[in-house]
Every structure is written in structure tokens, then in C-alpha cells.
């Protein structure tokens, strides 16, 4: 039987075999870690760290959208909440100019707030902030998922509801300027310090922090997709109703996928505050949220790594184009063109393209079969002859 298992795992698409996937994911993470070795430029490292954080965000969406079919247009909600949790903790570590040590954050003073609001107080504790940066998005996702998925709301309605939730929280944050800094967000933050290590946004330390978290999140997400729960998620994406008749509670699996994605997005949000040195309502804005979908689609939503690299590629290109003089006016157009081209010609994104190419080069049998579009002749099970014909 061992021989059988080997022979079948040989026939899994090359890039979907577990050990190939682990090696490629590992190699990419290693390459990310090596960047500061060859690049001694804190400004560029900060820029790249930002791209990596957005890569984590896109990877999180791939987990829910690509693997479980939940198109979450409000992905930036989890991201923004994580970002604000970190910003609140770092703000409380800043010594305010006017009020001195232990005083109120500056923007509260400007808004005539007398006392630190109750929900700010726990953020004096960094462990609490780190916990909240994950727990708040997860709780919100579970709550939203509970209502949406138990009511069997699917498809475009989920997209609209998640987008609406994002807009509501965004407006709330802008509106509650006294407690949130409103439109300006939370600025002038202290540096993160963990176990005596300082994470200056413009330093290789922060870059390594981002790279480490990225690696952990990527492999955690990979482990989920390789588990049976991950398989059931994919079955739900494929044919949700059929899954129920095997005894699985579809809502539970969807809530899980939604929440796991929110957790990773929340972590990415915390990192974003660290590398950007502020939190802003734009972090949970509609434009960012929709961009995540585009990155995922370009990179390949059904591949965690693809979605991540898609985000890095697109944001990197965006950065380069918007800074170059030739494309100063037209870079939005160029990006739009790239997106339309990918969606039209590469339904599985760049990852899908790479998978197809690798399969043609190294795959066994699959490529040939794909070319004819038919399965291997299954002996007597070709199933083409109808009984009726024979009876006649």
C-alpha cells in the first residue's frame, strides 16, 4: 500500500505537493530574510517591509476567499482594527509634550477630553494590546460570520455586508475624534519595544520582525489549508450544499475561515502601525480593502504564496510607477490595465499561470490529459453508452 500512496502523490500537481510547497514557501521566506544582508538602506527596507505587510494582508484574504469562497470586501476592517490596537498601545508610551509623563494623549487634550476613556486604559499593557490586535478582529469576524453564515447568506451579499461593516466602523472612527484621533488617526507614536529590543520603523530590526511574522503566518495558513478542515473549506467553496449532507455544519467552517483570515489581517495591521509609525482611518478604508481583492486576483487567490507575492508585486509596481516621471500621470491607468488583463486572461492569477507552466514541464500525464480535456479511458467506466441505446 505504501507504493500506492507514493504513486498517487506523484500525480498530484507538482506545485500542490506538500513537500514542494514547503520548499518553495521556505525559499521565498529565506529570500525575504536575506534582503537586509544585501541591502543596507533603511529607507528602502522600510518600504519593502510595508509591501511585505500588505502581502500578509492579501494572504489572509486568500485563506477565506480563495480557499473557502468567502469574498470579504471588508478585509481592511480587521487590518485597521489591528493597526489601531497597536497605535493605542504605542501612543500611551509616548510622553505627551503638554501634559508630561502619564498624561493624556495629545489629541485628547486638544479635544477637551478630561480623563482617559475606559477602553484605552488596558492598552498600557503591551501584551494586552498584542492580544487585542488579534482578538478584536476575530471577535468581530465571529459575530458577523455568526449572523451571515448561519442565515446562509452567500456570494455577493456577503461581499456587500462585509463592505458595509467596514464603512460603518470607518465612519465611527472618523466621527469619534475625541477617542480615536478622527480623520488624522493616531500619530506621534513611541517605538515598539519587546524584551529590550527596539523596533525603529527605519531599521533592519523592524524588517526582520515583519519577515518573521510573515513566515509564521504563511506557514500557519499553509497548515490550515493542508488540514482536513482546509479540505472541507475547499469543498464548501466548490459545492456548499453538498457538504451539509455529510454532516458538516457549513456555518462553523465558514466562521472559522473568516475568523482565521481576520486574525492574520489583524496581525498585519499591527505590523503596519509599526512600519508606518501611525494609524489612520485609511487603513480601514474602502480603497485599501478593494485593493486587497485586486492583489489577490492578480497573484492568484487560490494560492497563499501567490496572493502574497501578488500584493508585493502590485504595490511595488505602483510605488515604482507613481515615483517615475514618465508614468507620473498615467500610472493608475497602467495598473488598471494590468488588472483587467490578468482577470481576463488568467482566472487563477499569476500563481495559476506558473502552476500550468510547471505542470507542462515537470508534471506527469496531467498535462497531456489536460490538452485533450478528457480523463484517461477508465476501462469499462467510460460511461458514454447509455443503457437505452443498448436496449434498443
Amino acid at each position, binding site marked *: *500500500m505504501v507504493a500506492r500512496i507514493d504513486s498517487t502523490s506523484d500525480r498530484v500537481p507538482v506545485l500542490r505537493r506538500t513537500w514542494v510547497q514547503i520548499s518553495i514557501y521556505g525559499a521565498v521566506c529565506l529570500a525575504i530574510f536575506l534582503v537586509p544582508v544585501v541591502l543596507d538602506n533603511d529607507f528602502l527596507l522600510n518600504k519593502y517591509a510595508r509591501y511585505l505587510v500588505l502581502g500578509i494582508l492579501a494572504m489572509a484574504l486568500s485563506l477565506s476567499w480563495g480557499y473557502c469562497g468567502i469574498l470579504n470586501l471588508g478585509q481592511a476592517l480587521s487590518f485597521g482594527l489591528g493597526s489601531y490596537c497597536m497605535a493605542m498601545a504605542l501612543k500611551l508610551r509616548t510622553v505627551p509634550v503638554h501634559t508630561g509623563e502619564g498624561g493624556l494623549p495629545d489629541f485628547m487634550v486638544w479635544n477637551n477630553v478630561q480623563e482617559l476613556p475606559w477602553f484605552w486604559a488596558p492598552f498600557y499593557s503591551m501584551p494586552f494590546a498584542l492580544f487585542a490586535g488579534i482578538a478584536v478582529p476575530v471577535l468581530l469576524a465571529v459575530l458577523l460570520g455568526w449572523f451571515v453564515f448561519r442565515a446562509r447568506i452567500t456570494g455577493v451579499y456577503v461581499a456587500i455586508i462585509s463592505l458595509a461593516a467596514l464603512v460603518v466602523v470607518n465612519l465611527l472612527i472618523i466621527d469619534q475624534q475625541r477617542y480615536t484621533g478622527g480623520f488624522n488617526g493616531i500619530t506621534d507614536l513611541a517605538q515598539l519595544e519587546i524584551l529590550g529590543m527596539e523596533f525603529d520603523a527605519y531599521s533592519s530590526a523592524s524588517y526582520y520582525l515583519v519577515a518573521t511574522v510573515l513566515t509564521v503566518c504563511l506557514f500557519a495558513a499553509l497548515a490550515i489549508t493542508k488540514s482536513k478542515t482546509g479540505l472541507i473549506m*475547499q469543498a464548501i467553496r*466548490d459545492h456548499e450544499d453538498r457538504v451539509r*449532507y455529510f454532516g458538516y455544519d457549513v456555518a462553523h467552517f465558514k466562521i472559522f475561515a473568516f475568523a482565521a483570515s481576520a486574525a492574520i489581517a489583524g496581525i498585519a495591521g499591527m505590523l503596519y502601525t509599526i512600519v508606518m509609525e501611525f494609524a489612520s482611518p485609511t487603513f480601514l478604508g474602502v480603497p485599501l480593502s478593494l485593493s486587497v481583492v485586486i492583489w489577490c486576483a492578480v497573484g492568484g487567490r487560490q494560492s497563499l504564496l501567490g496572493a502574497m507575492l501578488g500584493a508585493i508585486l502590485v504595490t511595488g509596481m505602483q510605488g515604482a510607477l507613481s515615483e517615475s516621471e514618465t508614468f507620473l500621470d498615467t500610472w493608475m491607468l497602467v495598473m488598471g490595465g494590468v488588472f483587467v488583463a490578468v482577470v481576463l486572461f488568467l482566472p487563477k492569477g499569476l500563481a495559476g499561470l506558473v502552476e500550468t507552466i510547471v505542470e507542462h514541464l515537470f508534471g506527469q500525464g496531467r498535462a497531456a490529459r489536460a490538452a485533450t480535456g478528457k480523463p484517461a479511458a477508465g476501462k469499462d*467506466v467510460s460511461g458514454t453508452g*447509455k443503457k437505452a441505446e443498448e*436496449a434498443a
Partner: protein
Amino acid sequence: MTGYLELRDVAVSFNGFRAVDGLSLTVEKGELRCLIGPNGAGKTTALDLICGKVKPTHGSILLNGRPLDRLEEHEIARAGIGRKFQIPSVFKELTVPQNLEVAYCRKTGVFANLLRFARSVESDGLEKLAEMVGLEDCLDAPAGILSHGQTQWLEIALLLAQDPQVILMDEPTAGMTAHETRKTAELFKRLKGRHTLIVVEHDMSFIKEISDIISVMHQGRLLAEGTVQDIERNPEVREAYLGSGGITGA
């Protein structure tokens, strides 16, 4: 008298149209019951009612004395009911072994399954299952490219992997060759006894081969029940099939 699976005066209507209208059916444990009837008789709807896809507007459904009609689909499945659909329903983007792995549902919780690999220790047995239904050459293929007959076989294999107490089969041999139909008949005869089966079919020779008792539905109601001979002699049944080409040609 109570049976293992029991439908008591069950009815459902779609926008006023009563697709199933006061159906009562009692199936004993380990029995293989054939359910026949002309097109539109409500056979598929009857299976939908049992597995929870459709909720009855009237009457009750009991499995081993336990009412099923208020449970959700997944709860009914956990209670021991498995279903093959008339339009074969498999996971088109997943491979044959992945399909089987999903169907192999000893544990149904999110976190219980999070700690299990998608390719489990039982994969050996599942692969044998694929072999048994003649899909050993299609293990790598996404189920979407299988032919209609192969998809039928895959869904039957899914039910074998699921291994439920009660198996509901909606037209399992549609699109199969005569040889495959014989193979299916063999399989069903082996399943009977260990499982309780309800098989909806139009192919009378297949039914004759496998059945003990046949229930005939017509216009949402139970028209007749009995052995093949009883049914074939029954004038009401003949009349019901009139116009649809007789009982064998349906």
C-alpha cells in the same frame, strides 16, 4: 407498528402545488426499498424531505423513533442519513481522493478536523473504494472532468465512504452502461442488510433484480406497495403510468 424509517402523512407544497401530498411510508431496518413512479410523482421530493433539503409543511418523519423533520441538514446526516442526488453532486474542483476524504466524516467539528491531515491514515481504504468503483485511473483528476457515468460512481463511492445507516439513492444507474448497472445491482444487494436503502429508479429490470418491496408514488401520494408481481398486476399502477409509455418505459 413503527418501522425504522417512517414518513407519517408528510406533505409539502411549492407555491400551492402539492409535490408530496400525504405520503406515508414505513421502511424496516436493513431493507432495500425501491421507490418508483412516473415523472413528477414526487420521488425526488420525498428524498429531499427525508434528508432535510425540503422541510415538510405537514406530517412527521422519524428515524428509529426520533423525529427528523425539525433538524438541519447536517444534523440529519449525523443522525445517519446519506443521500445521492438525481443530478450527481460531487466536488468538481477536488480530486477523486479528496472527494472521498470529505465524505469520510467520522468527525465533523472544525477543530477536530484542524488537527488531521487532509490525507488521513484511512486514505488507503478510501483509495480501495475508488478502485472498487473503477476510478483508480482518475485519482489525480479534478472530479469536474469525469464523465456522467463516472460522476455517478464517484457519488456512490462518496456514500460508501460516508457509510451512513440509511442510504437514499436517486436514480443511481442513469447514464450507466448495462454492465455498470449490473455492477451497481451487485453492490446494492451487498449493502442491503447492513444499511437501509431507499432507491429511486426508472429501470424496471434493475428494480426486479434488487428489490424486495416496491413503493409506487403518483401525484405526491403512495399509490401501491408490494412485490414486483403485485405492482405489475396492479391496475391503478398501470393507469398511472399510462401515457408515459408503460411502467418499463418510464
